[in-house]
């Protein structure tokens, strides 16, 4: 691979991966905060309001890091991927601009009110501002997914005389069939992150014997939401997304599954390391016929392996793609398992005393982040070697005049700044968790009542 190309790809991969650690919690928590606020409003229960205020503080810190790491994403299309932008900007510029105009303005206007305005607003109006923040963040998710869906499965465009892509049908583009399931799957992933984090903090409080009233609310809300979304994530959204890949990116499917040879009744590899040179899986554990069933709903269906496609159209990093996909699926299965058990215990009224389960729930906090990251890596590495599937190769998309040296300079700069940002973030979040959800726990010097958010 050409040196500059590799660095531009790493540049985007690093900044995008780091960035997406934050919006997934923003979007997940936005939903759960609306749930808490709704319960508080309907039952007129101030404990739920306190719970919502606590999560609003976490949300606020998380939101800021999401915003400041998100701005570079939109700029990088131009700075590092200018040839791609000139080629596809007439189409994907639409959704990116709409994200700013519709979603970010909504979100940023109301987050101020939501975080600062609880005392100035009536409970209903404050609830409404929480809903507006939720709507803004979930809307922005759709515009990004629609942009990515175009790169995965371009629709609604025509090729102009100068070779660039231009919009032919707005609705075809915005309602890309790829975007629908991808959006559902992605937002499910975000809700899982939110639910696991809420559960984990609740479990930590219960295990420490602190703030148990609030902790029970956190665990209960988190487990119910977590169970619901973990199940939906596998069926139907994950299943349908797999079907789309089977139909529209069959070479990606083969690489994800580590299927080197076309065959009828293909088996599903659960564990095993792909060996690209020898074109086989080492020490495989497989479920016979399962891949055919998942892909075509028939156990003896013929599934095309990598050998059915020219090698220069294969995704260029098959092992990483294979592992990303397997990690995502493995963790997804694990989420269903623990959340179903936790829900059963909750239903039997035993969860809050089942310390072993609380331990598991507390320690599971990092896994949704890994699963979401692995999922995006599956989608984006699976799209390779194309930047716009079937239309433009990644190697033709980067900024040719930005040298490897300049790109490396800014990549290192981002790494440095993001490291500091990550440490600060963890530190501040930890302090809020230590401080707890009950007002009046602020340090003495504080002039501001903790009842006001953030």
């Amino acid at each position, binding site marked *: 691979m050409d040196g500059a190309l590799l660095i531009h790809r790493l540049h985007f991969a690093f900044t995008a991966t780091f960035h997406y650690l934050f919006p997934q919690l923003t979007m997940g928590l936005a939903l759960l905060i609306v749930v808490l606020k709704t319960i508080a409003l309907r039952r007129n229960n101030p404990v739920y309001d306190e719970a919502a205020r606590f999560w609003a503080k976490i949300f606020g810190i998380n939101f800021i890091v999401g915003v400041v790491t998100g701005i570079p994403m939109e700029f990088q299309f131009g700075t590092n991927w200018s040839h791609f932008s000139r080629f596809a*900007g007439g189409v994907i510029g639409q959704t990116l601009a709409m994200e700013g105009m519709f979603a970010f303005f909504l979100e940023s206007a109301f987050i101020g009110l939501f975080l600062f305005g609880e*005392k100035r607003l009536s409970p209903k109006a404050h609830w409404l501002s929480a809903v507006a923040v939720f709507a803004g963040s979930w809307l922005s998710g759709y515009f990004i997914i629609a942009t990515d869906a175009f790169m995965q499965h371009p629709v609604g465009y025509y090729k102009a005389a100068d070779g660039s892509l231009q919009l032919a049908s707005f609705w075809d583009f915005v309602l890309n069939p790829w975007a629908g399931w991808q959006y559902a799957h992605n937002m499910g992933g975000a809700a899982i992150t939110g639910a696991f984090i809420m559960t984990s903090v609740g479990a930590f409080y219960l295990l420490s014997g602190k703030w148990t009233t609030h902790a029970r609310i956190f665990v209960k809300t988190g487990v119910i939401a977590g169970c619901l979304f973990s199940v939906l994530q596998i069926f139907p959204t994950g299943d349908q997304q797999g079907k789309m890949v089977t139909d529209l990116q069959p070479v990606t499917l083969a690489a994800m599954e580590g299927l080197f040879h076309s065959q009828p009744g293909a088996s599903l590899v659960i564990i095993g390391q792909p060996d690209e040179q020898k074109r086989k899986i080492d020490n495989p554990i497989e479920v016979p016929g399962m891949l055919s069933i998942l892909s075509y709903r028939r156990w003896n269906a013929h599934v095309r392996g990598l050998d059915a496609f020219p090698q220069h159209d294969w995704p260029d990093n098959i092992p990483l793609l294979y592992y990303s996909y397997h990690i995502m699926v493995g963790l997804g299965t694990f989420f269903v398992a623990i959340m179903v058990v936790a829900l059963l215990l909750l239903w039997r009224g035993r969860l809050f005393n089942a310390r072993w389960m609380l331990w598991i729930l507390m320690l599971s906090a990092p896994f949704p982040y890994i699963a979401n990251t692995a999922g995006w890596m599956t989608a984006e590495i699976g799209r390779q070697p194309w930047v716009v599937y079937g239309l433009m190769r990644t190697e033709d998309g980067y900024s040719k005049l930005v040298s490897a040296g300049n790109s490396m300079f800014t990549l290192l700069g981002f790494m440095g700044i993001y490291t500091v940002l990550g440490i600060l973030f963890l530190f501040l979040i930890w302090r809020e968790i230590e401080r707890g959800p009950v007002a009046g726990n602020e340090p003495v010097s504080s002039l501001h009542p903790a009842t006001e958010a953030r």
Partner: protein
Amino acid sequence: MIAAYVVLDGFDLGAGAIYLIAAKTNNERRRVLRAIGPVWDGNEVWLIAAGGTLYFAFPRLYASSFSGFYLPLTIVLWLLILRGVGIEFRGHIENHVWQDFFDVIFSVSSILLAVVFGAALGNVVRGVPLDSTGYFFEPLWTNFKSGPQTGILDWYTVLIGALALVTLAAHGSYYVALKTDEDLGRRARGFALLCWPLQFFLTISTLLATYFIRPEIMVNYGRHKVGILVPMMVVASLAVMLWANPKGKEKLAFVASSLYIVGMLVGAAFALYPVVLPARDHQYDLTIYNTAAGAHGLNVGLVWWLFAAVLVVAYFVFVYRRFRGKVQLGEGHY
């Protein structure tokens, strides 16, 4: 949209620029932050939205300018990150050593942002080394002369950067004076008074320098006489600022400062039109014609864009009304 960004984020950048000097005590600093706290994030969305709009309406311009201004843009991104962190995280740590640290980060990054934005505008007026491929790349500086091997920073763009800094510092001072009272408000007003002669002097010298660098800047003004209104507005708003500020009419001064900024930007855009990114070699100029997206995309875009713009104005009016009046401490954060 770019004008809206500069006017709106301009005052919070300017507030950052004067922050260390004008606001001495912790309480005063918190009041400045509270004045911009609920709105800075929304103001920065203008930048993102302007970038997005540029992307869909003029994809070629977006691609050329963003990759050509690779280094300054990336530095802008870093500064925006640091600045956002400085504003937001300060209130989470009640330790004055950390707070001083975040204060310096916030203020220094605000100052640098004002200069870099100014220098970028200077580059656009001066012209960049575009070639037949429609791309260019500029190092941060070469020899500080204005050509032919240009860098982002040369004597001319640095001059514009200085003007931008002074303008935004004054703009921020008017805003702080408008939103606060007592010592802090008085000091902000005094600072704005100090800025005025500098701003006046720099305005004149940049206009002369621009004529020297790019004599054809006057062609559009000769062709369309209405254009003269724009420089007249600039001069008038400068005069209003000088008059209104000592009289304590902060609102009027702030409006005049906003009009001054709009006037300068519109004046530059009017002079360049229809060129949007001039090349050093004029045959490679990027114009609105050779960079625009396809007709269908532009038509569709205009429909939803106008619809969204109405919503945006509604949100902004709503939020600014909620947070109107002088800032008091005692409730909320920062």
